[in-house]
């Protein structure tokens, strides 16, 4: 069991997400940066879908009442076990009675604490992910609070043999240096003028304070819609469309664009004009308020290739740790 002695700003239990329910309005939730989440699980010998603790901007402090192997992956957060500094991206041993204390993020926004055996909350629709908007899943459907007691699953065999094994530096993302987010434009991008589409990929975007698990609102070039007589049922604003489904990672354009993240609304009446590719949703999730980024236009084949390359990297990392 882990007791939360300090929860951090926003810490939630997440796995890879809840699927098959999008058509009733249930977003996937799940780790915002699935790469870091997966690598954490590899390090401690878990299945990649085991639940970890996602910490945003600030880490938490967790007291262990039993010996466990843990790993901290994602945004750079200084961490100590009973005041002894530990490395990130490495399998580390925590003993019963010790406290793992994790500080503020300096490179990236989100870190994942993986524990051998995984965080064992009751699965809901086959997932342990937290969806705080409705209060579902995870630990009581909410972010962690001081005093919460998290049960752990049975540690995988040989977990302790992994202590000290680490991810090679070349595979550790330098989140703050990634400022190009790849987008497959399309969906309803016919609503935007060509000049506007051009500006979207050449001018910088800044992450606003309104950036969370639901969506990343960005500030940048002014949007310009192709004037039209609104079709029946769409609503009167030029940004309105007949309500439709939103892909995860899609860019919705009310006035300022919002990239829809893991806890986003599943559909609605604002035009969507493109979709951040699956690999880069994780990188976007590591952006902090006021950071700058660019959208890079790619096609679907580029997006699939990027995904395949990342999976190969993950397979290499996994193999290197066995």
């Amino acid at each position, binding site marked *: 069991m882990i007791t939360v002695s300090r929860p951090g700003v926003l810490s939630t239990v997440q796995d890879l997400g809840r*699927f*098959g*329910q*999008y*058509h*009733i*309005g*249930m977003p996937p939730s799940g780790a915002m940066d699935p790469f870091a989440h997966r690598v954490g699980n590899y390090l401690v010998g878990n299945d990649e879908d085991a639940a970890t603790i996602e910490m945003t901007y600030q880490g938490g402090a967790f007291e262990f009442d039993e010996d466990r192997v843990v790993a901290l992956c994602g945004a750079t957060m200084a961490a100590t076990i009973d005041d002894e500094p530990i490395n990130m991206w490495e399998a580390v041993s925590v003993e019963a009675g010790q406290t793992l204390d994790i500080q503020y993020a300096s490179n990236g926004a989100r870190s994942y604490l993986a524990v051998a055996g995984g965080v064992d909350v009751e699965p809901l629709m086959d997932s342990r992910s937290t969806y705080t*908007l*409705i*209060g*579902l899943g995870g630990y009581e459907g909410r972010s962690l609070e001081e005093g919460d007691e998290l049960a752990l699953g049975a540690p995988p065999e040989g977990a302790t043999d992994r202590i000290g094994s680490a991810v090679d530096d070349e595979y550790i993302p330098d989140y703050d240096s990634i400022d190009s987010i790849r987008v*497959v434009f*399309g*969906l*309803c991008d016919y609503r935007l003028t060509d000049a506007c589409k051009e500006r979207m990929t050449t001018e910088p975007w800044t992450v606003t304070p309104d950036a969370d698990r639901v969506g990343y609102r960005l500030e940048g070039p002014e949007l310009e819609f192709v004037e039209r007589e609104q*079709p*029946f*049922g*769409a*609503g*009167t*604003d030029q940004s*309105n*469309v*007949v*309500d*439709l*489904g939103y*892909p*995860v*990672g*899609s860019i919705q354009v009310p006035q300022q664009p919002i990239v829809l993240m893991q806890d986003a*609304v*599943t*559909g*609605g*009446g604002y035009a*969507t004009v493109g*979709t*951040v*590719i*699956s690999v880069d*949703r994780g990188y976007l999730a590591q952006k902090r308020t006021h950071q700058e980024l660019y959208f890079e236009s790619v*096609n*679907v084949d580029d*997006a*699939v290739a*990027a*995904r*395949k390359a990342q*999976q190969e990297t993950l397979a290499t990392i996994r193999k290197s740790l066995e």
Partner: protein
Amino acid sequence: MSTIERVTLPDPRYEFGGDDHVFVELDEAMSFDANFEAMAITQQLRKKDIDGIFEICPANASYMVRFEPETIDPHTVVETLKSVAEETDLSEYQWDTRIVDFPVLYEDEWTHETLMRFRDNHQDPDATDLEYSAQLNGFDSVDEFIGAHAGAPHMVTMVGFVPGLPWCFQMVPKDEQIEVPKYVQPRTDTPSRAVGYGGAFTAIYPVQGAGGYQLYGRTPLEVLDTDQNLADFAESMVFPQPGDILDFRRIDRTEYDEIREQIEAGTYEYTIESVSFSPEEFFADPHGYNEMLTEVLRG
């Protein structure tokens, strides 16, 4: 006899949503043709149970799928969707659905309090949402407007936004459809179970939260029951399903309170009848068809 004017849909637009979604826009405008096409194709897709496709989401005039590109190539997904569309013939199509009695307390105190609080966000700060909508749609009074909204059933043409929120499209010819704009600035608050209207759709808000639809009333019924206490939520925490037919019925405060009491006690059972829905018959004589449907419900 009034009929539903058929719409010839343009060629569908198949659009990639990143590497793992395909979004298909059947039409830019709302119509029963577009919606039934979306419903028919997604139902066929679900039956086919295609390896790698793990989300199938019908929407008002479009649909979307999500897939694992490791299992199925995005271009193959598009080809598959095209061939399913080709096989789907709406004229031979009908589906089993349910018609549900949906009591609504129009002009309730809760949505009234909310809409008064957000007058500055509205097109017409001096009228209520109902007054504004009635006038905009050429009704002489709010009562007459409510009579029209509750006067013919509505089909759930999409579920989403948040879990359990249905978009409902009234089953009447286009010249009888209500159409209203959304708020100029969305509200930051809406009561749970509020019945709102935006574009050509009624929405029921499952939980308290932000919203931009005109507010007409509040239903005592739940559309989302996360604890699945109520008998009608045994299978799913979400009640409305695409294709459901909701028959809004104007009730008074006494009945509202009685139903709420039963809902809170977990004893309320929704009044539901199974019906087979035939687009062709509905198109030919919507009013007659609706009468037949509601008769099944009201006996």
